[in-house]
């Protein structure tokens, strides 16, 4: 992936990082209502971005967490260590 693809991956990485870091915070602050509201909002944004990303580049995750068009798209390049 290059050019626009790079930007798309980086946008996805940025939002997922916010979710991951908030997830760790919530593990030790499970009753923080404001953080939970942020988490819900980020998740909605992520679901949208994920659908958009997958329609352009194919499945993001394995084992049924992403749909695939015919033929099976999961095997397609680039793999994470091959991205520019």
């Amino acid at each position: 992936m290059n050019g626009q693809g790079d930007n798309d991956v980086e946008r996805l990485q940025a939002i997922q990082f916010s979710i991951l870091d908030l997830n760790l915070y919530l593990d030790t602050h499970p009753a923080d209502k404001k953080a939970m509201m942020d988490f819900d909002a980020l998740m909605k944004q992520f679901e949208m971005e994920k659908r958009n990303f997958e329609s352009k580049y194919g499945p993001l995750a394995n084992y049924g967490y992403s749909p695939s068009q015919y033929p099976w798209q999961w095997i397609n390049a680039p793999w994470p260590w091959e991205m520019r």
Partner: protein
Amino acid sequence: MWIYQKTLQYPVKVDTINPQLAQMMLEQFGGPDGELSAGIRYLTQRYYMPLNEAKAVLTDIGTEELAHWEIIGTIAWKLVKNAPMEKIRGTAFEGHFANCGRNPFPHNAAGVPWTAGYIAVKSDPVADLHEDMAAEEKARATYEHLIQLSEDRGVNDTLSFLREREIVHFQRFGETLDKVQEYMSRKKYY
């Protein structure tokens, strides 16, 4: 159960071909305070843990460490994948190449293979969480050494991200330790 996502957690943009630096990166791929040790350490310590918060923190940080392991492997790979033999001969990567070729392998910068001796489980949450906090600080210090060794700006950007994650993990483990100690003083068992 784990689900794989086909992206890195953070971008890896390597600016140079540098087998010597790749060998140094392997310190965090298969060294005592590296990402593999971290992931296996935390995921292994979960079973006896008395508090749900602690089980969640070990699961989630352990999982993030495996994503970091993949980032380090990607840095090491990108530093050598297009390296001609004249750039490999005479460097610290030569011994790695003799066995493994260009693909990364979990050994430290000096070539010592990874061992489960780098991790510990005590079935004692105070002992284990202290080990985890120390491990995060040692990993942070290792990243600072690697940043000093590297003159590749792309590599250093990714290493700085990983260094910051060690600090956040230390914080979360510290909060977990507080909760565990509070729980144990309530239970009063010795």
